């Protein structure tokens, strides 16, 4: 088909347009997406479904799997909470204040995005081991950080750090100062203004960032396995259990746990999208 003939022709699924190339680009995009993402994921679900819903349920509720999911779930939630609190503070400080080195710190926030997880893993493991820079500070009190659930927590805080900051920053930036000034002229103290005027507007962004941090933390592998103790029922995370099952060549078990984790991820995604949709309607921005 010549280019001239393609011009202005779009398959009936799209509204007619003067621009050409819909068929080609849409077709390629959808094929690539299916081949790389959708079909493999479908195979996973299909493989897991060979066990049947009750089979998957049985695997998912064995004590060890439940414990691993609990460890992943609760520590991720705790890490996400810390990231919401400190992420808000960091975002506030970066948007509202000026101090030496601010630009560098602003850029550094994205480090967990750019740094390979294995590098983060060994760095954190050596930092928090009993003879590491930070671990040594706590060792005299008998507090062990590396190779305990506390170590997992530290790694997950690191991993989720940018999510809250980067979600809150644009919202805070666009926040209209007039509203704050109005609140002040009406007699509110600074604290009241911040907590009852500014913060509520940030809540959707905080929630979105927290949910993103949580979703990322639950599935994290590389940065956690070096610093976790990997002990079942204590410090074994769900992704590690999947790898263990794979190494035992228990494909069905691995698929079942992976499916459960997929469901959790999708639920988090759904929550994020709902928060964003709600926020768009209420505040006009995500």
């Amino acid at each position, binding site marked *: 088909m010549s*280019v001239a003939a393609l*011009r202005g022709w*779009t398959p009936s699924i*799209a*509204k007619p347009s003067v*621009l050409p*190339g819909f068929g080609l*680009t849409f077709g*390629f*995009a959808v094929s*690539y*997406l299916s081949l*790389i*993402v959708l079909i493999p*994921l479908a*195979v*996973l679900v299909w493989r897991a479904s060979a066990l049947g819903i009750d089979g998957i349920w049985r695997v998912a509720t064995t004590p060890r799997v439940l414990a691993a999911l609990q460890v992943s779930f609760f520590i991720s939630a705790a890490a996400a909470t810390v990231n919401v609190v400190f992420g808000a*503070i960091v975002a506030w*400080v*970066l*948007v509202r*204040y000026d*101090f030496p080195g601010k*630009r560098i710190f602003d*850029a*550094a*926030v*994205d*480090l*967990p*995005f*750019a*740094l*390979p*997880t*294995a*590098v983060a*893993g060994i*760095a*954190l493991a*050596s*930092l928090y081991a009993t003879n590491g820079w930070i671990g040594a500070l706590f060792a005299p009190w008998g507090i062990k950080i590396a190779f305990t659930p506390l170590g997992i927590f530290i790694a997950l805080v*690191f991993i989720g*750090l940018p999510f809250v900051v*980067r979600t809150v*920053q644009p919202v805070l930036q666009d926040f209209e100062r007039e509203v704050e000034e109005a609140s002040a002229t009406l007699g509110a103290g*600074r604290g009241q*203004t911040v907590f009852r005027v500014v913060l509520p507007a940030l809540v959707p962004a905080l929630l979105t960032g927290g949910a993103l941090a949580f*979703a990322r933390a*639950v*599935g*994290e*592998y590389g940065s956690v396995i070096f610093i976790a103790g990997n002990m079942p029922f204590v410090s074994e995370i769900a*992704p590690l259990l*999947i*790898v263990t099952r794979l190494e035992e060549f228990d494909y069905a078990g*691995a698929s079942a746990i*992976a499916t459960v984790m997929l469901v959790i*991820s999708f639920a988090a*995604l759904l929550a994020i999208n709902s928060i964003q949709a709600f926020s768009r309607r209420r505040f006009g921005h995500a």
Partner: protein
Amino acid sequence: MPDGVFGEGRLVRWTLIALAVGFLVLFLVLPLLAVFTEALRRGAEAFSASFDDADTQAAIRLTLLVAAIAVPLNLVFGLSAAWAIAKFEFPGKSVLISLIDLPFSVSPVVSGLVYVLLFGAKGLLGPLVDDWDFKIIFAVPGIVLATIFVTFPFIAREVIPLMQEQGTADEEAALTLGASGFRTFLTVTLPNVRWALLYGVLLCNARAMGEFGAVSVVSGHIRGLTNTMPLQVEILYNEYNFVAAFAVASLLAGLALVTLGAKSLLEWRHGDSLSPARRH
């Protein structure tokens, strides 16, 4: 900064700054410092000796190769999807956008697992792959596939919102002036999104070189053959060869710093040309 009712008191301000900076130093700066300190613990000679190892060199080459394949492929996909989504109206557009974001919410381990289930010897296409005598799992193609999966959305999600925001006016103008579709894309659309594209390529590349979990699952861990740099770091670490492990890690950390620097530069200089979410 106004004080009093229009701003926080100086005490509050500096406390918050201290808290924020302390948090960032603890979680970001210290690990980075640890990497470089451990790498140089035995001096510069031991550091450079780490790279004389043939397996380490092979790991570096493999990492570069995998990125060299994954990033361009995802680039083509990102541009294709962005063109289709931004310049046309069709039902299910938001579904497509959500699907593109899927790999973000999948654990890296699961990303590797899906390919083992598809191409492994006991997988769906296993016997077929065996017949063709083409190794996917436990070989380089498997690593490439898993890396493509994990870095799939990076470029697309930088370019799509921007192209959506830019609309079709420029392209339509070019077409009425007689340019062909491809020429329009090349000379009108691409320059409009070039900084966002570069931004996405940077992120995609950093992740492609640094992926660990997904690659660990599909690789055979054959030294010198199917080990990427992150896997090599793990092997060296497990063999108590800490200096070498951190030396390779410092290479990757250096790459991360370069990525961050380039990213920041793009944001400061061309912030307006980036996707809406990036402007801060």
